Each structure stands twice: as structure tokens, then as C-alpha cells.
């Protein structure tokens, strides 16, 4: 085998090995990145669930505050009284036409 042929074989072999090494590095980097993203995803899901939970609790608090019995007792506490009578108006034709 001539020197040139041996050198080419060496360079080719080295190139193949280097490429395989780089590919392996890239694969590891990619796999590590996915795994890390998985942990980020887990944290984000947990955060989302907690925010949803907090939102539901706040909505519940709103519903509690809107309960008629609570509003009525609060109105009484403020000294408000019920209207003694309700005035019903009969709308005339000119009004109903609008």
C-alpha cells in the first residue's frame, strides 16, 4: 500500500470516528435537553394546576359574597330598608312605540 493510500485511509477513519463522536454528543445534548424540558413541563403543569385551584377558590369566594342571604344581612347592617311599595307605570303608546 502506498503512503498516500494509507494516509487517506487514516484520514477517512478519523473523519468517520469524529463524525460518530459528534453525532453521539449531539444525541446526548438533545436527549438531555428533552429531559430538562420535561422537568420544566412538570413544574409548569404544577403551577398551572395551582393557579386553577386558586382561581376556583376565588370564584367560590365571589359566589359566597353574592349569596342573597349575605347581601340581605349586609343591607340590614347598613340600615337599608325594603321599599314599602313598588310603583308600576303604564307606558303610553308614544313610549311603547320607541
Amino acid at each position, binding site marked *: 500500500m502506498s503512503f498516500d493510500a494509507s494516509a487517506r485511509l487514516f484520514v477517512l477513519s478519523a473523519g468517520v470516528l469524529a463524525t460518530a463522536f459528534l453525532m453521539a454528543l449531539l444525541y446526548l445534548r438533545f*436527549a438531555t435537553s*428533552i*429531559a430538562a*424540558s*420535561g*422537568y420544566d*413541563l*412538570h413544574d409548569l403543569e404544577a403551577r398551572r*394546576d395551582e393557579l386553577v*385551584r386558586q382561581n*376556583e*377558590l376565588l*370564584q*367560590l369566594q365571589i*359566589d*359566597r359574597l*353574592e*349569596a*342573597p*342571604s349575605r347581601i*340581605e344581612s349586609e343591607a340590614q347592617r347598613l340600615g337599608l330598608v*325594603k*321599599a314599602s*311599595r*313598588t310603583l*308600576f307605570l303604564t307606558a303610553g303608546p308614544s313610549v311603547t312605540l320607541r
Partner: protein
Amino acid sequence: MFPDTLPSTRIKFLFAGFFVLSIVLSARLAYWQVLRRGDLLSQARAQVVQAETLAARRGAIYDQNGRLLATTVQLQSVYAIPQQIPDHATAAAALAPLLGDTAERIRSRFDSGAEWVFLKRRVPEAVSAKVKALAIPGIGLEPEPKRMYPADLAAASALGFVNDDGVGQSGVEASYDEALRGIPGELVVERDPAQRALAVGLRQTTPAVDGADLVLTLDLAMQSAAERELARVVKSEKAAGGTIVILDPDTGAIRALASMPGFDPNDVAHADPESFRDRAVSWTYEPGSTMKAITIAAALNEHAVEPSTTYDDKGYAVIGGRILNNAQGRSYGRLDISGILEKSANAGAVFVAQRLGAEKLSRYLHDFGFGQATGVDIAAEAGGTVRPVAEWYPVDLGTAAFGQGLTVTPLQLAAAYAAIANGGTLYKPYLVQEVHARDGSVRRTEPQPVRRVLTPETAAIVREMLTSVVDRGIAQNARLNSYSVAGKTGTAQIASADGSYVSNEYISSFASMLPARDPRFVVLVVIERPQSRLLGTLSAMSAFTGLAGDLMRYARVEPDRVR
């Protein structure tokens, strides 16, 4: 060299030994790696793969206007892993005031030998935040679903409640448990030792199907007003209990269903079990004089009497050899049919029943829905008792005419009055208006007419007579300034276990429809064992007037009478 130092036979034996050993090892390796590969793989996966149940979210319950009545939220439960807690005494002392427990009891749970133990389940958010801030190793928080009722005590008996496992125990929660509960799912996932899901691992999900939402016919504003008035009169009368039912007579839709004693569905652990019984649906009583309207309606419908028919009231009636007296033995002289209702004359009701006859009265009691469950969509409905006419003694015709010797539920009586109010058709009462499934489908409950009981003409005559009862008769305390009211009072005795009546204890009631000319609502008030005894109907009417004004204003019903 070798031949000089080692005999060739020994080398051969050594070589053969290594050869056999390598064959054995190879066979063993093949056994585990090929034949038992599946077992090893499953054991390895079992350490990282976890299957967990995805809980279905229980459906919410709303009133007819979309106000939330029941929902499920995630609250934090405090748990401990005692082996990881560095100092049991210090941790117990720090947690005790937050969890409302003693340090000794908390420490005894740490020292119980359990690997994992709940300290307190579903604590308020403020408490869980403080526990988290303590950052005690071995103390953690785990979210758990908790059924919450934002209107607190409102409609508690109609809604019911769920147990710790989320299963409905009474009311709508029980009768619609299957629809509300949904279907749990499953998540199979690979996790690392820190219990985090691996992004590149196995992940198979069978999603949970959340429970359906319910929209009730109840109106929270009407319900709250009914409960307010009921609580007021029960308190002032020191009564054992009571109920108020509000029905839409044209559909049978239940607008309010108040029951006392009540309970807080958010804290059923501390409730009296008797309070779980819905007085409107699961409780029966002898209705007393409110039944006179039913007897007279039946007789008018059969033309056994006419509105102009009169009789001479002597204060008592003789039937089957027994004397049945008017209340307090009063005699009213000549009365027409409307007068019987206005005076609430027992003897008059007996006179009408005798004209009608036992067979027909029994049939009308059945047609009005007494003696059988209405089929309302609430758990644990009672049916009441109306004995078959074949078992009646002659006197039973007379007692049944004014509501004794038979039992009804308040809901049955309200439904019967609704039939008079709407022109003669008995409707099946219902509480759930819509079921919203998660797939977007909506099942609506259509009003269900059960049967026509009265002609529209008879129903109108009875309404007119009941209006006279309020305008000129025994129920004048139920008059409203701007609206006509048709109604009838009832004071019933209470049967004891031995069949006799309890001395000096009564159930007072007022059954009504308003506005009388074109009824929008049927309202029934029942007070159990009021302190004022025979005058308990005054309190029942007081609850009615307190409620009716709000009801008309809220429903924007135009006054039908000039002030």
C-alpha cells in the same frame, strides 16, 4: 516451556473447566436475558412506571338563574411522614395551633409507627399557607377534592351533601349522584425518584370524564326569602320545625324548598342527623283543614254539591255513630259551600263528603296525588298514607274530609293546590331543570302533566272560594295590599305511636296561591308544634305575608288590586 512446567493434561482440564463454566454462565445469561426477559423488564418498569387514577370532577349545581349552589374545589390536606421529621416534639408544638389540635395528640400520631399519616384533611387556604411556611421536613400538603356550598345553609335539604368519598348522601346530590360523579380516568407514566414525570418515558392517558352540571328550578332569591321567613316564625314560635314550598303551578317546577331544622352542608360532621330529613319531601303529617279545599273541589267537580248548596251548621256532624265537632265547638248556622271554607267548618266538610261518598272521595284523593310518591327527583321521598277505601270505617269519610286519618307530604299538598291554581291539571313536581353533560349535550326536563283532576270551571270556582277565605274568612291575616290571595289554613293534630292524638300539640299550615286571579305561585307554609298551638296558623300566615311581598316584587308581578 509449558510442557516442562505443566503437564498438558492439567491444561486440558483447566481449559475444559473454563469452557464448562462459560457454557453455564452463558446459559444462565440466556435464561435471564431471553427466557425471563419479560419478568425482569416488568420488575424494572414497576419501579419507575406508575398508574394513577385521574379523579373525575364532580359536576356543579346552579339555580335557575345560574347562581352557583354547589361546586368542588381542591383543598390541601396536611400529612406527615414521621421518619423524616427531625424533632417530633418541636414539629407537633408548631403545628398544634394551626391545626386546632393539641401537641400531645399530634405527637402521638407521629409516634404511632405509621409510615404516612394525615394530620388534618381539607384545611382552609390560610392554614395550608402557614403550614407550608413552617417548612418542616416530613410535613407535606396533598390536594383533595372538597364539595362546597357557597350559599351556605340555603337549600341545604334540597341539595343534600356528599360524604368524604364524594358520594351523594341526600337530596339532589344523592338522586343525581351518577350523573354528577362522572367517570374516573387513568394516567400511566414513568417517574424519576423525585416523582417527576419523565419527558422521554412512557405516558398513557385515559382522560377522566367530568360529571354533568345541574341547573335546578330553584331560585336562590326565593329560596333565601322562604328560609328567612321560616326561620323567623320557627324561632318566634319555638317550633320543632317547619317547611315552605313554592311551586310554579303551570309546570310543577319547584322554586323554593325550605326545611327546618336545617344544616350547614359545608360542615355536616357537626349537624344533627334529624336535620338531614327534608321536611317538604321526606316527612309526612296529617294536613288538617287545608284538605277541605280538596274535598270541596272533588264534590263540585262531581256536582255532588253546587256553590249555592247550603246546610245548617250545628257545630257538629254525626257520621258512623261518631260525633265530629267544629273547632272549639262553634256553630255557624246556615252556610253555603264557600262559607264552609271561610269558617273552616269541620261539620260542613263532613256534609260535603257525605254528599260525595267515600268511593269518589277516595278516588279524588288518589287523583290529586295523595298516598303515593310524586316522583320528584329528590332522594328519600315519602309517599304519605291514604288507606284503601275498602278499609275505611264510616267515620273515616268524615275525618278524611277535613284532613285527618291520612298523611301527606308538604310537597304533595302543594302539588294538589297547584292543580287547583292552574285550572285542574296535576303536574309532577321537579327540581332539576337541565343536565349539562361534558360532551355538550343538554337534557332538559319538560313539565309532566300527570292527569286532569278538575275541570277548569271547577278549579276557577274553588279559587274564587279560597280567595273569599282570605278576603272575608278565617285567613284574613294573609291578605296582601296589592294582590289577591287564595288560601286555606290548617291546624292538624299529631298522631302518636299508640294511634291517639298528642295532647295540645298541633301542626299549623297555610296553603295558598297568588295572585289568586292568575296564580303565578303556590306557597305552602307548615309549622310543626308551634308554641301558640291553635293560633299557630297566624304565624304560618305571617311567614306567608312576609314572603309573598318579596316574591311578587322579585317576580315583577303587577298588582291586581288597588291599594
